């Protein structure tokens, strides 16, 4: 029996191979999207799940008293105190990070150094590939494969020497004793070089004192004897609040909270001063899931429509099978098996497509590393089986259960006309057009946003601006002089935190109100070089020594939030509890970091070269590369022991733009596939309608019907349904695009009905082109042929 089913299915499919090919490809691509959505979800869900003792490990975070904001940092002595004194705590560990310069004597670059203890490797499952771990010896380090390749190429890194802080007086040579496997991308802890906590230095170039309650470590972990003690232990930690708050008066902590290692990455976005990684952006996980579901739905609905329309040509087979003894149950199974067969082929295509797509998808996002691995991956196999069965059911259930119920007498008498023009088919068509429109609207919304990101007035000059990170005043002076020597350089300036390099947030007191604002100390000429506009008051006067100590500029956002009722000019603000500044001017809002972050209240103070972190250079856009090369040569001549850290201004906005371009690309592909599928569906319905009504159409033509009337007769029902789908899909698309833009960008162009209009025009044009072939066929066919064939 099965053999017979497969034989019929194979020959039936071969007869309708074009239909089948489109459907298999559509379903395959949809299934590939679902697989990627699943892998993304699983990747996100499994963040930090690979540590065998993970359930016992908790990160301590500090909740600040004044704003109840959670911070990733924690007073340094807490770890040792908790380990020694708190019941339920089995062990404690600190982890610190520094972006510091390292050198192998030949290559020098800024890297992320992690400071911890030997116990780190007993807590976490980060495999050692070769050598040994001896972090109790402060003259050693272990490094990742990636760092080993960067500094030692293919030669064995174990036994080699790396110098940390070569640009500092306390530079230190470390013996590499071990090679570690690179961290998985879905690990909160990312390392390149790990060394002893004894090698940590603070801002004043002094060795860090871990008994100092005012020193905040980047991450403090506790290992609990029993994970259920989480609440109890966090209550016990309150005992350390008085000592901490007494010792650290400007860092008052309300309480300590414990975050389980297995879930902390999903809450990391709510943490400030978080040196560990965070899970995927939620919009990415649900966006992909939604896309996978919608695409699968479109492809399945198309499959259903195809099955229904082709079933019309199989009624005779159904009738015959019933007459000669086939039961309804057998027919249902036969049709479901055919559906399953197509779904299986589609799944194969989908998996091949996924395999091709995954490396490209991983390249699109730096924070994603997805792999299609079946061995020992029961959840993936279970997911694939579930998707396969669901697809089969959505796609084949309706034809199977409906058609198998037909009475053979009706079929043989020609009373059953089942050619895909029923209400269900129309609803399916409407749903498909709706889904295509959603994707199109979103695609156009992100296209508009890409244009906005490229061309919008972001409040400062971005063309022709480049910056070099500089460690101290002497470097600044030398490089400034070098820059000024180049004839194409129009202007230079210094700044502590350049636009794009997240400025710190500090507390500002205005009267009795405290507010957190971004803090940007700028040098002479910076506002002019960056073309930041003054809205009211005056800019800094570099001749006035008091401007360095008493004058402050605020941005529009600050003014709007706190000086709604009055003029901010002349008002006094207190910074760092004691420093008083007078507001002398208000500058126009500008994007401080990138489009992902909101425009925040900001204060700008005037600062001197000894506090500069960047040298900013302005040229014509065309001269940027030449100037960069000139500066690079100069840097290598004078500061060979330090990395040349250079940025074009657009680099800071590149990640926002890349995200946007990626989403735009994904939606465009999605829209293209969905549109192709829905138009295939529309074409099937109209051509089958023509087949069914050929005699009627012919008679109407003989009686004098105009081509437009024939076109209306054949397509009106479907076009009305398609327009309803277009309208509903368009509105959903607008809402969805707005939600997606909001979840990704704090600054974006927004959505307008323009996207809907463009999407509508595209759908209408494509729909008309799709049905035109059938219409032309109907109005040009020889009438006698049609009547003779009937």
């Amino acid at each position, binding site marked *: 029996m099965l053999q017979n089913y497969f034989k019929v299915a194979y020959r039936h499919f071969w007869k309708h191979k074009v239909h089948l090919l489109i459907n298999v490809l559509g379903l395959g691509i949809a299934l590939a999207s679902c697989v990627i959505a699943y892998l993304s979800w699983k990747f996100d869900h499994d963040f930090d799940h690979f540590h065998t003792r993970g359930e016992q490990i908790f990160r301590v975070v500090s909740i600040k008293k004044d704003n109840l904001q959670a911070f990733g940092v924690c007073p340094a002595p807490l770890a040792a105190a908790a380990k020694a004194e708190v019941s339920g705590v089995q062990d404690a560990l600190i982890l610190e990070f520094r972006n510091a310069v390292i050198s192998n004597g030949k290559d020098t670059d800024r890297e992320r150094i992690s400071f911890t203890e030997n116990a780190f490797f007993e807590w976490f499952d980060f495999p050692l590939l070769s050598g040994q771990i001896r972090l109790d010896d402060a003259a050693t380090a272990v490094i990742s494969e990636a760092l080993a390749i960067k500094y030692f190429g293919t030669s064995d890194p174990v036994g080699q020497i790396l110098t940390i802080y070569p640009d500092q007086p306390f530079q230190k040579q470390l013996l590499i004793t071990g090679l570690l496997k690179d961290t998985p991308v879905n690990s909160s802890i990312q390392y390149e070089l790990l060394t002893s906590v004894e090698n940590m230095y603070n801002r004043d170039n002094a060795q860090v004192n871990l008994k100092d309650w005012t020193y905040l470590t980047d991450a403090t972990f506790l290992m609990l004897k029993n994970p259920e003690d989480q609440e109890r232990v966090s209550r016990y930690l309150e005992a350390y609040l008085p000592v901490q708050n007494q010792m650290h008066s400007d860092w008052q902590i309300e309480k300590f909270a414990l975050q389980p290692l297995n879930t902390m990455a999903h809450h990391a976005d709510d943490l400030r001063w978080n040196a560990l990684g965070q899970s995927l952006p939620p919009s990415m996980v649900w966006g992909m899931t939604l896309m996978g579901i919608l695409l699968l739905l479109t492809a399945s609905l198309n499959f259903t429509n195809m099955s229904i329309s082709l079933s019309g040509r199989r009624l005779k087979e159904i009738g015959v099978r019933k007459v*000669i*003894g086939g*039961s309804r149950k057998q027919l249902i199974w036969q049709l479901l098996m055919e559906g399953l067969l197509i779904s299986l082929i589609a799944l194969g295509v989908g998996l091949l497509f996924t395999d091709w797509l995954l490396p490209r998808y991983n390249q699109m996002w730096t924070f994603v590393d997805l792999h299609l691995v079946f061995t020992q991956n029961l959840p993936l196999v279970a997911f694939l089986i579930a998707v396969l069965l669901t697809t089969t059911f959505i796609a084949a259930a309706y034809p199977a259960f409906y058609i198998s119920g037909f009475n053979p*007498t009706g079929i043989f008498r020609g009373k059953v006309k089942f050619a895909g023009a029923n209400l269900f088919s129309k609803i399916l068509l409407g749903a498909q057009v709706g889904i295509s429109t959603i994707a199109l609207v979103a695609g156009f919304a992100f296209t508009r946003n890409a244009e906005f990101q490229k061309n919008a007035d972001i409040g400062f000059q971005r063309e022709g601006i480049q910056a070099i990170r500089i460690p101290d005043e002497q470097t600044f002076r030398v490089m400034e002089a070098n820059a000024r020597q180049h004839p194409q350089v129009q202007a230079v300036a210094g700044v502590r935190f350049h636009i794009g390099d997240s400025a710190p947030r500090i507390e500002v007191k205005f009267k009795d109100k405290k507010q957190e604002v971004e803090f940007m100390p700028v040098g002479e000429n910076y506002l002019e070089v960056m073309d930041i506009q003054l809205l009211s008051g005056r800019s800094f006067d570099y001749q006035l020594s008091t401007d360095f100590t008493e004058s402050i500029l605020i941005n529009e956002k600050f003014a709007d939030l706190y000086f709604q009722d009055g003029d901010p000019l002349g008002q006094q603000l207190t910074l760092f509890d004691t420093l008083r500044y007078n507001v002398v001017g208000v500058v126009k809002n500008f994007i401080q970091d990138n489009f992902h972050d909101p425009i925040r209240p900001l204060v700008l103070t005037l600062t001197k070269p000894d506090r500069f972190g960047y040298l900013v250079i302005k040229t014509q856009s065309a001269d940027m590369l030449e100037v960069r090369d000139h500066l690079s040569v100069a840097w290598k001549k004078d500061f060979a022991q330090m990395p040349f850290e250079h940025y074009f201004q657009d680099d800071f906005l590149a990640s926002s733009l890349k995200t946007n371009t990626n989403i735009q690309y994904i939606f465009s592909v999605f829209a293209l596939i969905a549109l192709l599928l829905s138009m295939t569906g529309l074409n099937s319905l109209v051509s089958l309608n023509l087949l069914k009504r050929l005699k009627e159409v012919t008679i109407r033509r003989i009686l004098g019907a105009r081509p437009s009337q024939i076109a209306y007769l054949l397509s009106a029902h479907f076009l009305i349904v398609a327009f309803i789908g277009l309208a509903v899909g368009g509105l959903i698309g607008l809402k969805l695009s707005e939600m997606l833009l909001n979840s990704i960008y704090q600054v974006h162009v927004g959505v307008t009905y323009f996207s809907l209009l463009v999407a509508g025009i595209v759908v209408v044009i494509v729909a008309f082109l799709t049905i035109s072939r059938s219409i032309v066929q109907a109005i040009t066919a020889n009438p006698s042929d049609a009547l003779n064939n009937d």
Partner: protein
Amino acid sequence: MIRIEKLKKVYRTEDVETTALNEVDITINQGEFVSIMGPSGCGKSTLLNILGLIDNPSGGAYHFLDHEVSKYSERQRSMLRKNNIGFIFQSFNLIDELTVFENVELPLIYTKVSSRDRKTRVEEVLERMNMMHRRNHFPQQLSGGQQQRVAVARAIVNNPKIILADEPTGNLDSANGNDVMKTLVHLNDEGATIIMVTHSQFCAEFGNRIIRMLDGQVVTENLLSKAARL
């Protein structure tokens, strides 16, 4: 073998009620070859469909092989049908996706005959129908007469107790039509009960009884002598 009493079939649409069969009484004995005649719309095909258990009557009684089947479910009818009845249609109704061999084999698959036995029996009937040389052809590669011979082969492959033929020669030229009728007579001579619906007086006379219908009722029944068929 077959006995129907006061059999009714009414088709209802929203506005119209059409009586296709109006209290028909017929008895058919084993080994008979009954031709049913009448103008279009007289109810003969409806009668044949009910006799063949592919349609249910609206009223009356239908005794098939001593079972009262008028209230049988589709499942029960299907069981009786596949074991006892062979069908021959005017438009052949062969499945286009299956070869000649596979079309003929299909009833045996539904009655769960083993693969080896199926092969033997299909080859036997194809040999008998002189269609063995076309066993791997698809229906669209055959002439009308050949297609109907395949349909006959399919109808008899299960050795049914009764063969129902609905205008079996309607789509054939006279030579092919004659061949099919001679085959049916031959099957009848071998013991098969045959009920045939036809418009053709010539074909009807191959049977041994002619039932004439008009407006859903039996109007006459004529017995034919054996000599008349030959």
